[in-house]
């Protein structure tokens, strides 16, 4: 059921398609793709890249629609981001989780900021290093706090990410490696609230992505996202996926993936498809 925010994002998607490019010098695909929490990344994992195609002295913007469809859940994401001088990224995502067996809906808003602190994705020896925050506000926390014993309806993840594109690295192809360390008290990324009966109880988790560019337009790869497992009532597993990404031009990118989300709340072995479309200015 599209609500006002989803319609706003759709409007921005259309506007970006029609609008003038106000800076688009970055190399194709170095914008990254959309991700479930709104930050530029690979799908499940935020990368160190700054979203959009704005390079030094330029602005970039992007809007994304994403969908994860596993056995008992559907997660829809609508998000927008802006990148400034390839240095700073601000993002907003609205997530809508449909819990099909309960016919329930959980919504969450994610406000993100990310800044490149050192290095560059392609140039020089150092990988691009970025520091990011994701402030998450669960709009329907009753299941999490009243039933599952979560401590809070909102929380803030902090992360550092390192990304590097190694040219002509494997089978004569360019290889992207990304590692992200996240300090978080979110249960199932916050969709099941934050912390547990013991309080906030934040933990450090590791996330990783690998991608191989078959040519400038197509990449294949995989992602892994470690998750905390701190709710007493239910289990939480790491998430992983294998993906195919298509960058036909600097306006559009599409990511399709097969995702394994493990146990979510009462339901085990959640697997299914992920699809994300991003429009860039």
């Amino acid at each position, binding site marked *: 059921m599209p609500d006002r925010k989803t319609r706003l994002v759709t409007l921005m998607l259309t506007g970006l398609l029609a609008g003038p490019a106000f*800076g688009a*010098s*970055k*190399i*194709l695909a*170095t914008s990254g793709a959309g991700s479930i929490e709104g930050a530029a990344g690979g799908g499940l994992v935020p990368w160190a890249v700054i979203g959009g195609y704005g*390079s*030094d*002295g*330029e602005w970039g913007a992007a809007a994304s629609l994403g969908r994860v469809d596993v056995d008992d859940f559907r997660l829809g994401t609508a998000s927008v981001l802006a990148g400034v001088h*390839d240095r700073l990224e601000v993002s907003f995502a609205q997530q809508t989780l449909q819990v099909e067996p309960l016919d329930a809906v959980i919504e969450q808003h994610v406000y993100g900021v990310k800044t490149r602190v050192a290095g*560059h994705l*392609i*140039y*020089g020896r150092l990988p691009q290093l970025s520091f990011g925050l994701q402030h998450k506000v669960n709009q329907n926390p009753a299941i999490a706090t009243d039933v599952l014993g979560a401590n809070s309806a909102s929380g803030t993840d902090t992360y550092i990410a390192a990304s590097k594109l190694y*040219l*002509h690295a494997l*089978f*004569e*192809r*360019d290889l992207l490696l990304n590692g992200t360390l996240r300090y978080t008290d979110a249960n199932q990324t916050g969709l099941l609230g934050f912390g547990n009966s013991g309080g906030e109880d934040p933990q450090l988790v590791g996330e990783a992505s690998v991608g*191989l560019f*078959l*040519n*400038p337009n197509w990449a*294949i790869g*995989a992602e892994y996202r470690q998750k905390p497992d701190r709710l007493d009532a239910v289990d939480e597993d790491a998430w*992983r*996926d*294998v993906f*195919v990404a298509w960058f036909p031009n600097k306006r559009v990118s599409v990511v399709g993936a*097969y995702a*394994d989300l493990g146990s979510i709340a009462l339901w085990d072995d959640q*697997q299914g498809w992920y699809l994300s479309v991003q429009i860039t200015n």
Partner: protein
Amino acid sequence: MTRLITILIATTLLAACSTQPTEPDTTLYNRLGGQAGITTIVDNLLFEIGGNETLIGFFADTDIDRFREKLIEQLCEVSDGPCEYTGDSMAQVHADMDIDNRHFDALVTDLITAMTEAGVPTGAQNDLLARLVPMHDEVIHAEEHLNGDER
């Protein structure tokens, strides 16, 4: 999870198979199409730069014939062809131009287009870019490199 690993291995193998086997003694120069291929790449690149607002300003006072000749020479040398680059160093060429990543990104984008239009296979494109991109620091920080040379 086994299914995921199977898919990953299958796609990786697919990527491996889609790579053309290359003769060990074939130079990048040959894979770019030799002198004729490199000339086509450079001419395509000049055409792209001509339509690129981010870059065209740098060439207002450039002797394009000399630029074209030196660039062909440089790409020939970089790709292990039978040439010697006789132009100035990258720091000398780019000093006082205030080049930043926006310009470097734009040039890489135009070069990829130029190579694609010339029919250069992806592997050879990546090889040439991997040899040129390390010049980034000398181009962006040309003055520092020149000062370093003088000491």
